[in-house]
């Protein structure tokens, strides 16, 4: 048995994770929307053998704030389209896209992720988040309907349940492709997703077809549990440790 191995994600954010990154002369305006540059970054991450590239996303630009004018991270590629492109220019590295459960529909999102998983040959993952703020609500024509916290999460759980069912709804051997007998699929292995939630309802069949390696299991990165006798050192070399990471999100490897 080999030694336990680190898992590493490369969290992409252009021009940089630091809010001041865009003012550094090493970054270039033309690289904000430059697919060639993006491909180069993805290949660099792959050369480094990262498990995955991770991207955040938001459904509002924050235009009412001073930060909007200052330009810190107000614009970026839509994650699923971006990764569909990167899937074609890389071989191994995984892609974890952030997508919101608040203003999407499970049917659409399940399809999009299933497509990405096929295009990338099993390299897709989903960072499940919720969306907040009036600006986001207005972007979806929901004036003054910002969701309270608990309802956003309730909806997110229902959303996740439905998406996972949709992903499973075509069994691996549903498509027979029997050219001789003229039978394309085994209807018994394509399942209808029936769901009655408080926020979401579903009685649909997925159009995505059987997935490759997919079928997600969810993991929720949160509260690391260190060894009993170990505590993080107090700040050394001005380094700060966040004692607790609490992230209210799931990440799903498809």
């Amino acid at each position, binding site marked *: 048995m080999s*030694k336990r*191995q*680190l*898992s*590493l*994600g*490369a*969290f992409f*954010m252009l021009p*940089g*994770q*630091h*809010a001041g*990154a865009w003012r*550094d002369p*090493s*970054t270039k305006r033309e690289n904000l929307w430059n697919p060639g540059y993006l491909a180069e*970054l993805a290949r*660099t991450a792959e050369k*480094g053998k990262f*498990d995955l590239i991770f991207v955040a996303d938001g459904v509002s630009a924050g235009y009412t*704030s001073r*930060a909007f004018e*200052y330009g810190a991270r107000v614009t970026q590629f839509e994650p699923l389209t971006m990764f569909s492109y990167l899937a074609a220019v890389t071989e*191994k590295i*995984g892609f974890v896209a952030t997508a919101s459960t608040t203003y999407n529909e499970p049917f659409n999102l399940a399809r999009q992720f299933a497509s990405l998983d096929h295009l990338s*040959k*099993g390299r897709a*993952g989903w960072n499940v988040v919720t969306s*907040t*703020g009036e600006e986001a609500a207005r972007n979806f024509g929901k004036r003054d309907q910002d969701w309270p*916290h608990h309802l956003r999460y309730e909806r997110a759980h229902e959303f996740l349940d439905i998406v996972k*069912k949709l992903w499973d*709804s075509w*069994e*691996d051997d549903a498509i027979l492709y029997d050219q001789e007998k003229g039978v394309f699929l085994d209807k018994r*292995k394509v*399942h209808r997703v029936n769901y009655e939630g408080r926020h979401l309802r579903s009685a649909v069949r997925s159009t995505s077809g059987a997935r490759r*390696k997919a*079928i*997600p*299991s969810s*993991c929720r*990165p949160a*509260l*690391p*549990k*260190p*060894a009993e006798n*170990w505590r993080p050192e107090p700040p050394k070399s*001005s*380094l*700060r440790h*966040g004692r*607790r*990471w609490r*992230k*209210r999100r799931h990440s799903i*490897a*498809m």
Partner: protein
Amino acid sequence: MKGRLAKYGRSPDELKIMPGVFPIIGRTEEEARAKKKYLEELVPLQVGVERLSFQLGVDLSRYDVDGPLPQLPPVEEINGNKSRFELIRNMAEREHLTIRQLIGRVITGRGHWEILGTPEQIADQLQEWFENGAADGFNVMPPVFPESLNEFVELVIPILQERGIFRKEYEGSTLREHLGLERPVNQFARQTVAQN
């Protein structure tokens, strides 16, 4: 977190904890520190005040940036990111930070774990957290692209590989294989089996 998995019939290995880390790498510690300072100075103070105000649910522009935080609302009243709110509040309390100092933290790593130093120092800290079971890995947040990504790949990853805690080549080809996660059984297929 991992302890809760058994309740759902799952093993601890089925969940990977990969917190965000914000590395500032220098050839020397001084260089890394200077880099951090340089980046912070690129962000107008006003922008930082606004961002922190948003995250804490309080208008901080009315307070002295070199003083402490005012009374914050209870977490129950935060409708945005509650965990980020708590993380920042706790950081300020624990380390007695002024508003300006807190902005430095939030602007840099957005409250994520910031690590600063030489490539060896960065690798040491990642390894320490990993080997003590505090994390299965990390989501690395390069401050400036492409430079900081290149530095991490060229300077830090080879050290982790040399120490035998990070792959030199990909063994699998899917995300699940990279993370060492099994493909779960299809919930509908399971039903079919149960019915039979």
